[in-house]
């Protein structure tokens, strides 16, 4: 009986280890890079960039489909392989995320114009992605999978890439968190003391898009957007300082992911619900008592 448990555990680990590691890496990265998003009060920027990234995947799927229909020579077939690869979809997801992020960099001349741009990108990208693949059942299924979030099918090479993104994110924030926070919370002061606000905002916008682009490709919209903002919300409810938020937010994201994903690994613990959505639900539920705690403090 006991040996069967360990055999099942080993089997589950071999089956889910890449998904497990991928979930943790994405949670760690997004919960850090999301702090300036919340600090700037640009919550829906994350949703808009996520949608733009989905549009990138839809464009990649359509280009691949077009290429399949129209290739004639052996060279075309070679190109076709690349256009059908995961790397091409990832490249397109990151590229469109960067474009969207640069379009909404800064706050805009007025809050209204900024919100309008965010709303336009979100709607254009979401509808555009669905319309592009509407007549291709296979592509439509993949876009729906991206919308609803699923890390199933994660592979080791993706995890190497995500490890690099996570390490760079952690390194950047350890090195520059004070400047990041000043630029995010008080750009006028930052500019006055010689900080090049626009450079920092553009640099951050690009890195945010890279993180979101990779995360969307591997984990989908709900997990990406959820991990970008919800752990920061929880952390700010229980912390007293920005530094505390930067430390606690990734801890919450990783802990919740670990808790839910462990359920998939341990035999008999699986809830049968999609792990990515269950993780986001858990963090969202955690926000309720922590918000009450904040109000009563």
């Amino acid at each position, binding site marked *: 009986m006991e040996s069967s448990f360990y055999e099942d555990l080993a089997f589950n680990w071999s089956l889910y280890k890449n998904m497990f590691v991928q979930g943790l890496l994405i949670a760690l990265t997004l919960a850090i890079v999301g702090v300036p998003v919340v600090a700037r009060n640009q919550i829906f920027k994350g949703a808009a960039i996520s949608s733009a990234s989905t549009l990138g995947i839809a464009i990649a799927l359509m280009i691949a489909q077009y290429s399949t229909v129209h290739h004639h020579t052996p060279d075309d077939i070679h190109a076709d392989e690349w256009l059908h690869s995961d790397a091409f979809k990832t490249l397109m997801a990151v590229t469109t995320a960067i474009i969207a992020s640069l379009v909404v960099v800064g706050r805009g001349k007025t809050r209204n114009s900024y919100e309008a741009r965010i709303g336009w990108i979100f709607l254009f990208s979401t509808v555009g992605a669905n319309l592009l693949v509407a007549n291709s059942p296979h592509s439509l299924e993949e876009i729906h999978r991206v919308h609803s979030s699923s890390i199933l099918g994660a592979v080791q090479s993706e995890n190497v890439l995500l490890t690099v993104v996570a390490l760079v994110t952690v390194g950047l924030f350890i090195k520059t968190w*004070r400047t990041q926070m000043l630029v995010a919370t008080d750009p006028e002061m930052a*500019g006055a*003391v010689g900080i090049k606000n626009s450079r920092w905002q553009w640099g951050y916008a690009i890195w945010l898009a890279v993180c979101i682009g990779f995360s969307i490709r591997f984990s989908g919209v709900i997990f990406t957007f959820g991990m970008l903002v919800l752990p920061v919300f929880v952390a700010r409810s229980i912390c007293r300082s920005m530094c505390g*938020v930067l430390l606690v937010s990734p801890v919450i994201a990783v802990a919740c992911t670990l808790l839910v994903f462990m359920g998939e690994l341990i035999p008999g613990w699986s809830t049968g619900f999609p792990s990515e959505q269950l993780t986001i639900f858990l963090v969202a539920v955690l926000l309720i008592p922590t918000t009450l705690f904040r109000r009563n403090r």
Partner: protein
Amino acid sequence: MPQQNSIVVNATDLALGYARKAILRNINLSIHDGQFWFVVGKNGTGKTTLIRALLRQLSPLEGTLEFGGDFTDHSKLGFVPQFNQSDDTLPTTVEEFISLGSVGLRYTKAELRSNLQYAIERMHLEDLTKHSYWSLSGGQQQRVRIARALVRRPQVIIADEPTSGLDVDIQRVLLQQLLELNQQDGITLIVVSHNWAAVEKYGTHCAYVKDDSIQVLQSEEFSALSELFGEAV
């Protein structure tokens, strides 16, 4: 009193504006170390344009704007914005808020600790360091913002309407603290204000911004023009 000899800012036939359209012209002024300057004028006359030039965020359209002494770069500049632009999107303690003022400077931990202590003591914030910045009153928040400028150990502080929206009593306390920084620590102050009474009481010099130009007044000239400014400012 600090010696008032070295020039901190020198403007000669300066024209300032945006997209080659001058908003202020023929500006001639010299700000010396240890002086207490006020910049006064009606809304929309160009006070912010002048301040942006002093913060090196705006290049001259014509003329020259030179910075001297330790003020040749941003390291010895402290800035106190009128309002904190951020909402309370993230929690922050008074101590953390003040320490962010040192961003961009290469301090050791010991230097930062020492400067933080100096800023907290000078603004009498010892009892508030662990408090949430967002829980403070308007007057306390403004003292914290001045402390954030002080953590840079500045030679010059530029403050954009630091007393705006505060009770008269709190304005008086805040201006008195600024005067102490000027007289005891030798910090040159450039303060944007609409409060002519404060100019008369605390200022050594005044830059009156009117009709796309700037009139420079010394303290002995204040009283003769106070009636005019009382209406205009």
